[in-house]
């Protein structure tokens, strides 16, 4: 299996990582040039650091997946890329939105007894609000993320 990651967001220079099943025979390349080989993931228990020509440092280790970092920041698309965690955050907001809208529609259309007491309009409005919050979290707004978290905590307590 071979995976490539850009060194920085939008950069052409790429780190290539190839390995066999079970993270064996790991080969690390940069710009097509081999940097290092490792027999298995145990060899990457401790971080391995490489100094690049431009003075930056590339680090590889195995911690909850293959962890590749440039100057301490996870490479785009790698396991610990901040974008993955951001995706979890806006995904959570979208999930609440979808859940609220679905429940709102069910109450509106079928009014099942087990959902007695739920206001369909309230659920639909909450769904739209969470959808909007998710959109702005996706656009990387810290304030909206804080609002969504507080709103969700108040909503569920």
């Amino acid at each position: 299996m071979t995976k490539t990651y850009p060194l920085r967001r939008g950069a052409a220079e790429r780190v290539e990582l190839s390995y066999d099943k079970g993270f064996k025979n790991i080969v690390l390349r940069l710009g097509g040039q081999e940097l290092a080989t490792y027999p298995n993931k145990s060899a990457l228990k401790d971080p391995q650091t490489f100094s690049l020509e431009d003075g930056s440092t590339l680090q590889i280790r195995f911690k909850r997946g293959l962890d590749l970092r440039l100057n301490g920041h996870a490479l785009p698309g790698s396991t610990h890329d901040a974008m993955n965690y951001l995706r979890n955050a806006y995904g959570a907001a979208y999930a609440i939105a979808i859940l609220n809208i679905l429940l709102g529609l069910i109450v509106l259309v079928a009014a099942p007894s087990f959902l007695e007491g739920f206001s369909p309009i309230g659920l639909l409005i909450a769904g739209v609000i969470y959808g909007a919050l998710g959109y702005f979290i996706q656009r990387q707004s810290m304030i909206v993320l804080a609002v969504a978290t507080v709103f969700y905590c108040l909503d569920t307590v």
Partner: protein
Amino acid sequence: MQGQGGPSGAAIGIRVAILVGLFQGFGALRSLKQERQATAPPSPEVA
């Protein structure tokens, strides 16, 4: 959302997963900001 009776284990699990997801966003946004600052080109000096 307010249900009738106590929430089930699955409902609590979903709520915790959603909260964990939201909280992960704070670290992610902080990290993305640091990343942007680290890769931003130096601002031109004003004479």
